[in-house]
């Protein structure tokens, strides 16, 4: 046996070709009916009477003594069906009925404004616009990927071990005993060593957080003291040798 190829279309055993395959029109699409079925009811079904009527009535009334005696004429002794042909007939009845019911259900679940082709024109146009929009998005993604690939390595900061990471390329790792949200941002690509100044609170009586450091890989590490006041703290990130701040760090202690 041949192992299927990755494309799933070209192995020798599959015999696939590039031709578009069309289903031929068939002379007959239904099975020949069994001649014995002609002696059944008009719809080809046996009478829907099952089992011992006397016993069934006793189950219905809850009292076997009250049950009417069965005269044997209202029920058909023997099995419910006699094998192959009848099972196939029953099978086709069931599946054809279910297909019709399925179509009705599908129509019920379909959007109420869905009608003929002319009524669906706005929907089709909307789909067309969405398709072009999707293609546009894919092109943008493609261009961004191509641009990123061509950028010098120094402009891309490597990932930190954990914590959040902003979209310019610096990670934040915070150790705290209470809920904290943090965000670091670089204003421009950084190539040299990064340092961080202590964080200061916004209010006049707000405290400071001094244990701020930048670890290799541009990951800012902050240890929030357990007695730090709730509120928002700000800090500056500096690049050694540069004259202006390289970025900022915002930390909110407590709150949501």
């Amino acid at each position, binding site marked *: *046996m041949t192992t299927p190829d990755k494309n799933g279309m070209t192995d020798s055993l599959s015999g696939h070709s590039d031709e578009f395959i069309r289903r031929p029109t068939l002379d007959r699409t239904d099975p020949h009916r069994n001649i014995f079925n002609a002696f059944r009811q008009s719809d080809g079904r046996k009478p*829907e009477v099952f*089992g011992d009527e006397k016993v069934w009535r006793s189950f219905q009334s809850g009292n076997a003594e009250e049950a009417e005696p069965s005269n044997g004429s209202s029920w058909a002794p023997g099995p419910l069906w006699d094998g192959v042909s009848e099972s196939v007939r029953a*099978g*086709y009845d069931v599946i054809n009925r279910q297909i019709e019911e399925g179509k009705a259900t599908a129509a019920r679940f379909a959007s109420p404004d869905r009608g003929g082709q002319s009524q669906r024109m706005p929907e089709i146009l909307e789909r067309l616009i969405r398709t072009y929009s999707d293609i546009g998005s894919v092109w943008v993604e493609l261009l961004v990927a191509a641009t990123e690939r061509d950028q010098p390595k120094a402009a891309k900061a490597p990932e930190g071990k954990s914590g959040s990471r902003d979209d310019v390329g610096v990670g934040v790792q915070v150790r705290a005993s209470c809920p904290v949200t943090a965000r670091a941002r670089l204003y421009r690509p950084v190539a040299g060593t990064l340092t961080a100044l202590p964080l200061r609170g916004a209010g006049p009586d707000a405290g400071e957080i001094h244990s701020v450091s930048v670890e290799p890989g541009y990951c800012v590490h902050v240890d929030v003291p357990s007695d730090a006041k709730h509120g928002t703290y700000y800090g500056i990130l500096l690049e050694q040798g540069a004259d202006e701040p390289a970025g900022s760090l915002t930390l909110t202690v407590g709150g949501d």
Partner: protein
Amino acid sequence: MSEPAIQETLEEYGAMTRDLMAHYLPTPEADHYLYGPAADYPLRGGKMMRPSICIATARLFGASLEDALKVAVSIELLHNALLIHDDIEDESETRRGQPTLHMKHGIPIALNVGDALALSSLRPLIHVFPRIGPWMGLKLIEDMERMARETAEGQAMELAWRHDNTLRLAPEDYLVMVLKKTCWLATIFPCRAGALLGSRSSISEDAFMRFGFFVGAAFQISDDTLNIEAEAIYGKEACGDLLEGKRTLMLIDLLNLLRGDDLHRLVAFLSRKRSELAEDETGWVREKIIDLGCLNRARSAARGMAGAAQHEFDLTFGHFPQSRDKAFLSGLACWSLSRSH
């Protein structure tokens, strides 16, 4: 295609599906309450008929194996999820030769694992969407939603019959239940999903329904007869269907055939809980099913379904050039009759 060749295809496509499925299941050692038990049923094996049908149909219609495998994994994950829930609902004790998940871990954990597996089945589909586009992705999801709804409706029918101890059923009722509960997930949806992937266009609402139904019905009736015949070789417990009071074609037939005291005895058997059933009572029902010809008639019915499946196969797939996948799909119905487990 011969039975060994069908088996070989099942094993090959099944192995590919299992390999990819492992990527979607976290390491079994991860924990004992979710991901460990979640990998349990998939690791036990199984026939892998559902994913194989999907892959074969997809390849026949020209889809890539990569896309087909992802959808096949999704189907298999959902199937395993439903098996866990079915085992709880049926109070089954063994599955594929081992204790059922709820017997090993308890019902709450098993239920949660089933939920997790069902939701995990979306992940491979999400991965295939960027390749097939949003419109085809939507079609696939729409079909999957229909399959899930039909499967739940079929299960509800069977549960209702047992809950209400329904006695007067016709073979047609059984076939409707099988169509919904078994065929949609086992055969109809795998075929339709494969064709959607390959054709990259909409397919009609009734496409593959007749073929899928007859293959699935032949498979299910055959499964029911095996449950009555088999002893230890069968993956599930022997006569488990009788213990669970399942309304199989044979039981419906028997309910029609029995008279007087025997009918009273059978109705009393069906009205009892599983834990209250004596072994000799189950043996008596089994004997009656065999002695009164219900087993043989069910086998005949399965053969009829397999024949109809072959007829529908010719209508649906006959115009395709000969290939291994075509031969596999063509031989499925007969294979379902000849298998021993």
